[in-house]
Structure formats: C-alpha cells, structure tokens
C-alpha cells in the first residue's frame, strides 16, 4: 500500500462512481428535452407530465453527477502532479475548454430550467432543456478527446522534459477521439433508454398510467434501439483503432498470447498470466480477430508474448471486461429488437416487461466494464507509450491519500445509497396525476394506432 496504489484506487473509485450518474444525464437530458418540445409543438398535456416526471428523476441523478465531477477536475493535480506537469500543455487545455465552453452551459441553464417554469415562455423553457442536453453532451466531447489523447497521444512534441502541443487540430479530430466519443455517448443513450423502459415496464405491469408509460416506453425504445445498434458498430470501429494504436490492449482483451496470422476470437478464455497462456480456451472462430481488426482474415496480430512483461496490461480484467461488455451489447440489441415487434402490444407482453424492468442495471454494468477495459487495458501507461502510471503519481504522503480514499468511499457510498433510493422512490411513486381521466383522452387511442 503506497501512495501510487491508493491514488489509483481512489481515481478508479471516484471516476467509476461519477460514471454511474453521467450516462443517465447524457441520455435523459435529450429525452426530456424531446418530451418538452413535443409538448410545446402538440400542446398534449401528457408530454408535459412526462417532462415533469422524468425531469424529476433526471434532476436527482444530475445532482450527484455534478458534485462528483468536481473531484475529477482537481484529482489530476492532487494525486497525479507529475502527470499534470508533464502533459498539462495538452491535457489541461482540453479540461479548461470543457469547463468554459460546455459545463457552464449545462450548469447555468439547469437552474434556469428548474426555477424558470413560470418565468419563461413555453418555447424558451423547452429551449433551455435543449441547452442542458447540448451542454452535457458537449462536455462529454472534450472529456473524451482528453481521454483519447491518453490512449493515443498525437499532435505533440517532447520539449524541455514535457509534452508540448504542436497540432491542436490533430488532437481534437483524431479518429480515436471521434470513435470513442460516439461509442461512449451512444452507450449512455442505451443506458438512459433502458432506464426509461424499465421504469415504464414496472408501471405497465401494474397497469398504472398506461397511456403515459406506453408513450414513454415507446419513445425510449426507438432511442434505445438506434443507440444500441450505433454503439455496437462504433464498438467494432473502436476495436480497429485500438488494434492500430494499442496493440497490447488488443492482445489483452482477446487474451492472445502468440503472434499469429488468421488470429481467432475465442468465445471464452481464462488467461493464466504467470505461464503466459490461457488455461481454458473455448469456441475459437479462426481468423475472426484478424478480420475484425484489420479487415483481412490473414492479417497478423501480435500476441502478448511479443511484448515485454512490464508493458502488458492485466490480462484477466481486460479480457473479462471486454467480453462482458460485448455480451451485454448483444443483449441490448436483442431486447430492443424484440421490443420493436412488441411495441403495439406491450400490455400483453408481461414477460417482456418484466425482463425490461430487471434489465435496468445491465447497461450500468456494461458502461463500467467499458471503462474498466479502456483504463486497465491502457496500463502500465498513463499516456500510452509515453509515461507510465507509476511515474505519474504526486510526491505526497501515503497517509494523506489513505484518509481521502476512506473519505470518498464513505461519502460516496452514502451519496450513492441516498441518490439511488430517491430515484427509486420517485420512480415507483409515478407521476403526480390522477390517471382515471387519461384513457378518455383522444390522444390515447391515436397514440396506440400510430406506428
């Protein structure tokens, strides 16, 4: 237990906790803005009620997301000062741009949205909802560009013992960043869609607010179906850029030890890192890895043995995170495709609704596995190929980090319990209106017949 180990633990804990709340913000902000826009355009009160109900859940989640984000902005300085001094010229500017150009937008207008119902016109209020959605998603752009640079450093030169920017455009437009951004935000949309579908399913199973939740479910279904397809396609592209830029991560995620042509994909492996082999290998698809990453079935893929042991990431975590993520990604497509065929008879599909209810945690698991793969797979580097994690930590006392780590674990656990309990409480309670009147609305019949 030294400052390095504890700092890594603290970074992992605070970042992963933060990312329990960020994806819902990214996706639900768009859905709520869409609902409010529909209300403004159609005048249909159901959309207003949807905006208020989902908006309330959104805000509880948003509060925890925002406060846990502050930590991340400062943690590079507190715990990773050597890293910060070494790459600040590039990495620091990306974080600063995120704050000035994006974070202000969402944080200023969230207050306006919460308090502005009676102060703004309907149109302006819906516009504010879009500004929040744009702000939070635009935040993600800059954070993911920054992370992409840690995975694949470009546009810099080493001068006076640090990385200095030479090509800003290369940093913000590199393929790694673009692919990572789309993959990550669409994964967040899948999570938000499953959140809305799952809670709607709960109420539909109880036959409560049927019109309200059918409409919510179907809106989320479309969003979720498109997003889960995009996330999968971009995941594949992500594999291609990883193969190009991070050969050790690729080899670890597939637990491929030997360099080979026609490299296979295994359905299941259990890597044995000590003996540099897999103790279990099941379901080899020959050439699949070569084909997927290089689009050539005969392409050569470098195995882990080709790299010195001190340049390999932890294979077990990386490969399990990868396979878990991909498996879940397939489940999301399956569930949303099934949903598409059942969209007009949701009430008659209690089994499907039940599955959707219990699927709420799955995208949470998937996004965490995704980040685990991204960050653990990058090890032992903090910036791939440039500076090692072990060389990046601040010269601080172990006791300081130990105390702050315990503090984070305690405070965040309590926050997590409080936050998720409140979300569950208000989700179960349902919207605040009497639903006896709603089925008499003409909109109900219309909505059911629309495709």
């Amino acid at each position, binding site marked *: 237990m030294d400052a390095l180990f504890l700092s890594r633990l603290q970074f992992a804990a605070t970042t992963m906790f933060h990312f329990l709340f960020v994806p819902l913000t990214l996706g639900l902000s768009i859905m709520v803005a869409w609902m409010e826009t529909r209300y403004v355009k159609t005048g249909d009160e159901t959309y207003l009620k949807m905006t208020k109900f989902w908006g309330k859940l959104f*805000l*509880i989640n*948003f*509060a*925890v997301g*925002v*406060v846990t984000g*502050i*930590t991340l*902005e*400062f943690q*590079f*300085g*507190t*715990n990773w*000062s*050597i890293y*910060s*001094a070494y790459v*600040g*010229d590039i*990495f*620091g*500017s990306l*974080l*600063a*741009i*995120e*704050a*000035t*150009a994006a974070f*202000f*937008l969402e*944080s*200023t*207008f969230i*207050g*306006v949205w*919460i*308090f*502005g119902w*009676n*102060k*703004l016109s309907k149109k302006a209020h819906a516009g504010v909802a879009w500004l929040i959605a744009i702000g939070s998603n635009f935040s993600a752009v800059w954070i993911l560009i920054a992370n992409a640079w840690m995975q694949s450093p470009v546009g810099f030169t080493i*001068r006076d013992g640090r990385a*200095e*920017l*030479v090509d*800003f455009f290369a940093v913000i437009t590199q393929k790694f960043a673009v692919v990572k951004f789309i993959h990550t935000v669409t994964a967040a949309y899948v999570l938000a869609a499953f959140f809305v579908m799952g809670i709607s399913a709960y109420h539909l199973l109880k036959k409560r607010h049927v019109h309200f939740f059918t409409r919510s479910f179907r809106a989320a279904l479309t969003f979720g179906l498109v997003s889960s397809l995009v996330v999968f396609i971009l995941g594949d592209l992500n594999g291609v850029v990883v193969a190009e830029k991070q050969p050790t991560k690729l080899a670890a995620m597939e637990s491929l030890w030997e360099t080979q042509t026609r490299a296979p994909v295994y359905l299941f492996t259990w890597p044995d890192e000590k003996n540099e082999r897999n103790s279990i290998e099941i379901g080899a698809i020959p050439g699949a890895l070569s084909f997927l990453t290089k689009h050539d079935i005969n392409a050569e893929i470098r195995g882990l043995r080709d790299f010195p042991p001190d340049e390999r990431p932890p294979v077990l975590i990386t490969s399990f995170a990868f396979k878990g993520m991909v498996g879940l990604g397939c489940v999301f497509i399956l569930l949303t495709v099934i949903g598409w065929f059942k969209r007009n008879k949701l009430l008659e599909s209690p089994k499907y609704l039940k599955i959707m209810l219990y699927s709420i945690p799955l995208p949470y698991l998937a996004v965490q596995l995704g980040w685990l793969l991204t960050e653990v797979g990058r090890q032992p580097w903090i910036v791939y190929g440039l500076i090692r994690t072990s060389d990046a930590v*601040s*010269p*601080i006392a172990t006791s300081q980090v130990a*105390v*702050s780590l315990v*503090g984070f674990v305690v*405070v965040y656990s309590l*926050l997590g319990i*409080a936050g998720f309990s*409140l979300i569950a*409480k208000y989700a179960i309670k349902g919207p605040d209106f009497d639903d006896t009147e709603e089925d008499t609305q003409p909109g109900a019949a219309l909505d059911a017949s629309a495709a």
Partner: protein
Amino acid sequence: MELQSIWFFLWGLLWAIFFMTDGFDLGIGTLYPILGKNEEKKRVMINAMGPLWDGNQVWLITAGGVTFAAFPIVYAVMFSSLYTALMLILFALIIRGVSFEFRGKLDDPRWIKIWDTCIFVGSFLPALLFGVAFANIFQGIPIDGDGIFQGNVLALFNPYGILGGILFVLLFVQHGAIWLAIKTDGELHENAVRISGKIWPILLAVAVIFLVYTKFATDLYDNYLANPVLFLVVLLTVAGLIGSRIFMAKQEFFKAWFSSALTIVGTTFFGVIGLFPNLFPSSLDPAYSLTAFNASSSPLTLKIMLVVVVIFVPVVLAYQIWAYNLFKTKVNTQEMTY
C-alpha cells in the same frame, strides 16, 4: 504585454469572478443556521440561491481548469501540496451540492436535519479554507526546488492564514446577506439587513488588520511601492466596502450588492497584483517560486486558450447575467421549488 502576463491576470480574474459569484451563496449557506429560524425561512434561503449556485460553482472548475491549461506546473504543485485542504473543500462542496436537491425529497425531520448541516458545513468550510489557502499563497508555501511540499497541513493555520480565512468568511457572509435582502421580504429581509449591518464594522476591522498584517507577513506591497498607481486597487476595494454600507443604509440593495462584489474582486486582485509574477511563491527560497514565466504552458497552448477564453468567457457572462436578471425578483413563498 507577454502572453504569460496576460494569462496571469486572466487567472486572477477567473478566481475573482468565482469568489464574487459563488461567494454570495457560500455566504447564505454560512448564515443558514443563524437566519433560517424555521422551515419556511430555510426554504426561502435555499430558493434565494437555488437557480444560481450551480452556475456560480463552475467558475471554480474553470479557474482550476485554466490553472491546469495555462500553468500546468502550478496546477500540479499547488493542488498536490495543498492536498488535504483541497480535499476538505471538495468534500464540503460535494455534500453541499446534493443538499439542495435531496433535502426536500423526503418528509422526515432527521433527513432534513442531515442536509441542513451539510448546507452549513459545505458553505462555511470552503469560504474559510479558500481564505486560508490564498493567504498562505500570499506569504509563500514551503515547496522545495522539485515543487515538493515540505510542510504540513496544520502549518497552514498560522495567524496570517487564519486571518485570511476569517476575512473571506466575512466578505462572503456580507455578500450573502445583501443578496438575501434583495431576494426576500418580511422578517427574513429585515434580519438579513440587520446582520449585514452588524457584520460590516467587523469586516472593516478585519480588512484593515489584514492590510496591515500583509505588510509584515508577505512581500505583496513590493509591487505597489514600485508602482504606486496600483494603490488605486486598494482604494477601490475600500470604496466598495464603504459603498456597500451606505447603499444598505439607503436600502438600495442592488447597488450594495455590486459594491460588495467590487470589494471581493478588489480583494482578490489586491493579492494577485501583489503576487505578480509569482503564482505560487516558495517560502524556502525565492528561486523555487513558481512564476507566470517558469511554470506556464507553451506559447501555442496559451494562444489557443486565449482565443477560447476571449470568446467563451464573455458569452458565459452574458447568459449568466441574463439568468441573474431573470431571478432577481423576491422569492415567492407560494411557489418554492426546493
């Protein structure tokens, strides 16, 4: 002016805007146990800052981010050497931030009590610690030639550091009381006005002691003595302080608030100008001090960031002013959100 000097003052400006904006809501949170005598008053206080605190707090993120971008070495050394102090601030801001949203969501007195405590602690502690931290920066931090902190966190609580902390708390409480006077009526309004009046002479006394003590504890006055015209900043700050008292007496609350804002910005710039070109002076050896020139980013990064800041900071200011204007009316107790 060189890029680094421009950035030095932009850095100071961002901190100043942070203290000016978030200062009033930290102040209201500090006054919360004193003025929030019943549930309705507490809720009015929360709703008085509710629409604005979140946007205010981003100035901190921006000040931190810009420190990282423009002066990465300062960012690295400042935050790692002030590790424990910064962590305390972060924890405080975390529990405070969720309080507003969580507090009213369960109808249980114990639950409400927890978040009431968090609002106070989460407001008072950052106000105090920012003051302590900046006062310590003014007098120098024990960092060695490798930027490694050679002191301990308790040493930050030296007399000058504590005085800086008290000064910040009083500045923010005054700022918050005036904002409350703007946003409320009835008993709470009168109490806010009264407490502002009571704090003012104490604030004045502390400010004077701080200005005098600064002469003995720091080298800040060197720049002023070299360029006496800079004493205008001190004059403006004092003018703001006196102005806030006069306008409060005349019940011109907006003018009082702007005067108080001027005092806070002036106080920040008093320190920033005195520090120049040091961003993070070493108390061990001036040669170890981190300056705008030995700790900055490359010219390219400074240029790009300058473009970003010149475009976006005015845009942000514009929409934040719009938001302030939207929410300047008194809290309507019939339709409180929190």
